[in-house]
């Protein structure tokens, strides 16, 4: 599915059930592409009538809300756009999203992921818009913000001076919006026509490295890049994603980020593919630099797994899950306790390129009735872990494997067997995906298998991280 499904970052692992953590946090971008249409259930009639409205009776409340939505939509409709990415050779759409006009001279905001195909391959894809009045034309890309998944485009024919563009909600920019505030989200879901959806503001998402507005409302594929506004039609955020596990759990890029990007767009000109790649590379570099600084600033806490001690980040944007196989078999041969943490900071760069994520897992294995040789074989089965992704976006992996003596980077560190793999991004110089697996070598029938996978990092940062990661692995056998 072109740029549409946004998995939480499940890596392929040998002989291991799909991580539960991965199943819980699945996001979907809201751009709509070929193939997703059939899954759509455009059942929008089932309006929630039980909305708290203390002064009025239920019927009045429904009427008044409905009237508000009608007014908001009526005002907004001329400024809404559907944005199509068209495969040039076939003259057919490859993905569909939404956008909205923010200036009379024809500037519009949308998501980066709506335009990603065109941004990276302008020779293959072009972008077009369709307005509510049926007018259509082509778009030029002016600015992108990878971290917030935003982009500014320019219409080829400005709508004219009498036209009134969307403004941003001051309350949202100043952080004064309160949870429960009624919001309206607009866009063109599943290519069914422009639509308005009511929902509520629920603040910024807790436990998220990236600032994301939690909007409780039914965002659907195709609404990516559409505006979410207050009842005064002031923009609070830009539709970005929804959780495919929960109901009505949707996410917006905050208005503040949109305003910043618009200012940036004013300064720059049109971006070609080379400029986009440069910009993506520069933004990713800046982004991961901040990320590692934030990681260091948050600090680490020591966690025990059997006799082993591992460091876990104190940052609350790590989602951590624990798993044991103790209850899975009647007669267990190897006990496994695993703790895995994931940042869910993946950024969408282009078709099948997700980056900026970090996943760390530590698994403690203890033989129950396996001999030392058999136990070592069982450890060998889980090796190595590598991130997936489309081959044409990355260079092949290059890997090294070695045994490291105990007590080197820290006195309690056991001897380790370390495998380290890295690959580069074909379009973005200086960015790498790195995976490191360390297996402790201090006991014949007990081991800790630790894995860290970083995507979209600088090589130096990856090496520094690896050093810290290895130094933090400790064993305290005297306590047993």
């Amino acid at each position, binding site marked *: 599915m072109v740029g549409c499904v946004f998995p939480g970052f499940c890596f392929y692992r040998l002989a291991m059930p799909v991580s539960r953590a991965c199943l819980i946090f699945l996001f979907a971008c809201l751009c709509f592409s070929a193939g997703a249409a059939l899954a759509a259930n455009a059942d929008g009639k089932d309006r929630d009538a039980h909305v708290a409205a203390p002064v009025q009776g239920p019927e009045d409340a429904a009427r008044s809300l409905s009237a508000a939505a009608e007014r908001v939509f009526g005002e907004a409709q001329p400024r809404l756009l559907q944005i199509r990415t068209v495969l*040039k*050779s076939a*003259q057919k759409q490859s993905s569909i999203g939404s956008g909205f006009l923010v200036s009379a001279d024809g500037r519009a905001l949308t998501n980066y992921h709506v335009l990603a195909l065109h941004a990276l391959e302008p*020779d*293959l894809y072009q972008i077009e818009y369709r307005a509510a009045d049926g007018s259509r034309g082509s778009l030029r890309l002016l600015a992108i913000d990878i971290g917030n998944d935003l982009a500014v485009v320019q219409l080829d024919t400005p709508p004219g001076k009498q036209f009134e563009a969307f403004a941003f909600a001051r309350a949202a920019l100043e952080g004064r919006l309160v949870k429960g505030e009624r919001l309206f989200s607009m866009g063109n879901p599943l290519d069914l026509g422009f639509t308005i959806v009511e929902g509520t503001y629920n603040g910024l998402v807790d436990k998220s490295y990236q600032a994301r507005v939690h909007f409780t409302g039914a965002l659907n594929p195709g609404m990516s890049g559409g505006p979410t506004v207050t009842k005064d039609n002031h923009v609070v955020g830009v539709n970005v994603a929804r959780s495919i596990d929960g109901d009505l759990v949707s996410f917006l890029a905050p208005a503040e980020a949109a305003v910043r990007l618009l200012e940036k767009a004013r300064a720059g000109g049109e971006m070609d593919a080379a400029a986009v790649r440069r910009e993506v590379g520069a933004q990713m570099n800046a982004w991961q630099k901040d990320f590692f600084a934030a990681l260091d600033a948050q600090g680490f806490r020591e966690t025990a797994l059997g006799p082993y001690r591992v460091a876990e980040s104190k940052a609350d944007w790590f989602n951590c899950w624990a798993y044991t196989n103790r209850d*899975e*078999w009647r*007669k267990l*041969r*190897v006990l496994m306790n695993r703790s895995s943490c994931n940042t869910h900071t993946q950024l969408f760069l282009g078709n099948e390129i997700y980056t900026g994520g970090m996943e760390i897992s530590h698994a403690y294995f203890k033989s129950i009735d*396996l001999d*030392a*040789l*058999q*136990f*070592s*074989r*069982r*450890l060998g089965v889980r*090796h*190595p872990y*590598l991130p997936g992704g489309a*081959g044409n976006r*990355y*260079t*092949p*992996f*290059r*890997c*090294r*494997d*070695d*045994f*490291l*003596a*105990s007590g*080197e980077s820290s006195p309690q560190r056991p*001897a380790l*067997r*370390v*495998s*380290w*793999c*890295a*690959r*580069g*991004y*074909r379009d973005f*110089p200086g960015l*790498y995906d790195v995976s490191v697996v360390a*297996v402790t*070598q*201090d*006991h*014949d029938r007990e081991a800790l298998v630790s894995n860290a996978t970083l995507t979209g990092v600088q*090589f130096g940062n990856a*090496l520094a991280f*690896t*050093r810290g990661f*290895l130094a933090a692995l400790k064993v305290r056998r005297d306590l047993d």
Partner: protein
Amino acid sequence: MIWIETLSRNKEVVARVRATGKMATIGRAYDNDVIIDDPHVAPRHMRVRHGEDGALIAEDLGSRNGIQDESGKRRHAMKLTGDTLLRVGQTWLRVRDNTFRIPAERILPPERRLWPWLLLALTLAIGVRLLNSWQTDIFEHSDPVALYVRPLLGFALLASAWITFWAVLTRLLAGQARAGLHAIIALTGFAVVSVAGSLQTWLSFALSSHALADYGFVLIWLLAAAVFHAHLRAIGARHSLRKAVAVLMLALCACLAQWLESRPFSSEEMSDPDFHPGEFYPPSWRITPPGTEEPFFEQLREIEPMIEKLRKHDAELRNTNVSAPPKS
């Protein structure tokens, strides 16, 4: 008395004819002492007689194809020792008289009892096969029948087929099957090659040797070649060197094939073709102590320019592709 022996192309005696006169004539016609059914032989082709010094002499009787010596040279007449080979038409002959000296009688070898060795080899092979199964018996869902019994039956079938093949071949070429000997060679060979394979992976772990992990298969193929050679020797001990060279060439071909297989030369591969992390063994089975961190990180640092080179190579490919964009 003169003995005229007809030989096969492999110089084994096919027929032996005694001529009682002082001279023996050889040819296709029925008035000869020795008749040879070879269309390239003249009706009266040659004769053999004793010379003045008592040695045998072969003389051409005016045939068109003549007499050839071992090197293929045509001779009108040639002196024969008991070991001289000569060719008339397409037939090899050897001529001896009653004074030819033969080697002394060989002492009968003691009766060789094969079965204790066979039993030992069988035990060894089954033991190794079961040990291999045991090493993979590591999961909660392991099924003993699938892990132990089925591979053993498969092994029995394969071994029987292999031994039968060699026995039939030996029966054809050497007259007797020598199935017991082939069974000992095959079973011991399997055990040795299998143990050597495990030894190779263990040593590459115990010594942290990437070279052993990457190129140990050469040793395994050489061992397999030795087993093959042992089978060939069991057919017949002749040309042992020639057989050894042939078998060695086959082993080298196998090595080359495996090397090509393990190193895909396409840069499109997602995995690292040079990366073979090797097997896991218990830490206490190590021999050399583990390495230090700095050299390892030095190796990791070398990866960056490698990947950059790959990326640049791809970028060049992309540019050549883009120079002819599809028409819209």
